[in-house]
């Protein structure tokens, strides 16, 4: 019983992933091409609803683009060529995975840079702490000054 409930609950979580926007009439008869089309659709942004891929979106434009991707694949395009076909018309923004190029260097390499700066700062702080701890003991003159100062405090 418990197992059944768990399975049912899990399938509830999985259900949204099965319910994609692709309509039956769009699906290609060749399962290999269809699989490629699906994975390409996941990489293309629906410009009407921006943070959905065209595979997720019910917008008409998303449907048009899904059909276009399939047309390109049927016409013999490679995956890269099909993506480029759409990028040429809609710009880099249509790619959910931004390409590595001059304008995206900060995006791609910024985090690595920040990690290195952080490591650098950490090493610096650790080293400074070490030198602060390993101090030299007081000499005689300093010790007498310290005791007299402490005595004066307690007298008051």
């Amino acid at each position, binding site marked *: 019983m418990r197992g059944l409930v768990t399975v049912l609950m899990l399938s509830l979580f999985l259900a949204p992933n099965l319910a994609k926007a692709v309509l039956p009439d769009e699906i290609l008869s060749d399962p290999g091409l269809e699989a490629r089309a699906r994975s390409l659709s996941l990489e293309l942004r629906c*410009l009407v609803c*921006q943070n959905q891929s065209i595979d997720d979106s019910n917008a*008409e*434009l998303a449907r*048009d683009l899904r059909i276009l991707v399939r047309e390109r694949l049927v016409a013999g395009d490679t995956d890269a060529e099909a993506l480029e076909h759409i990028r*040429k*018309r*809609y710009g880099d*923004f249509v790619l959910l995975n931004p390409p590595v190029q001059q304008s995206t260097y900060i995006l791609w390499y910024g985090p690595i840079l920040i990690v290195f700066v952080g490591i650098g700062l950490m090493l610096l702080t650790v080293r400074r702490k070490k030198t602060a701890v390993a101090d030299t003991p007081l000499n005689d003159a300093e010790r007498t000054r310290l005791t007299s100062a402490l005595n004066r405090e307690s007298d008051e």
Partner: protein
Amino acid sequence: MRKVLYLLPLMFCLGLGVFFYLGLDGDPRSVPSAFINKPSPEFSLAPLPGRAKAPFANFDVLNRNDLTSGRPLILNVWASWCVPCVAEHPLVDRLAKEEGILVHGINYRDKAVAASNWLNRLGDPFTKVGFDNDGKAGIEWGVYGVPETFVIDGDGTVIFKHAGALTPEIVEKNILPFFKGRN
């Protein structure tokens, strides 16, 4: 020197704040066109059927040749079901009739009867109207919502694009200066 180092995190956070504040500006829905300063795409559209202002329907196919006549022009993508298109229509009308600019239209994913009724009702500023009922030409142009307005140089180069309804500010700032002395 030490003090400067202590101020560093504060300065970093302030910088970040300024960066984010600037990020609040601008419309995240407006995506730069892939065609700016590039040749306009190839396309060919039959004229909008039933349009009152098209006596020589056979000559009214709208294609890339219409954009390379040497005269700069505006290409306006619209649809009768599109509410912001109604809002911007007086401005498109003004660009064509008062400023004397050549304006072509692409009727995007529309029904012919609804579209020609819309033009009869609100006025028809267009020289040619291509009928893009399946949205294929729209895709060639990278259209993702209507209205969209392109400014195109006489050799077919796309100079400027605005997605969404035109406003008087955009017309004054981004469109009219280009046509000054070129029309």
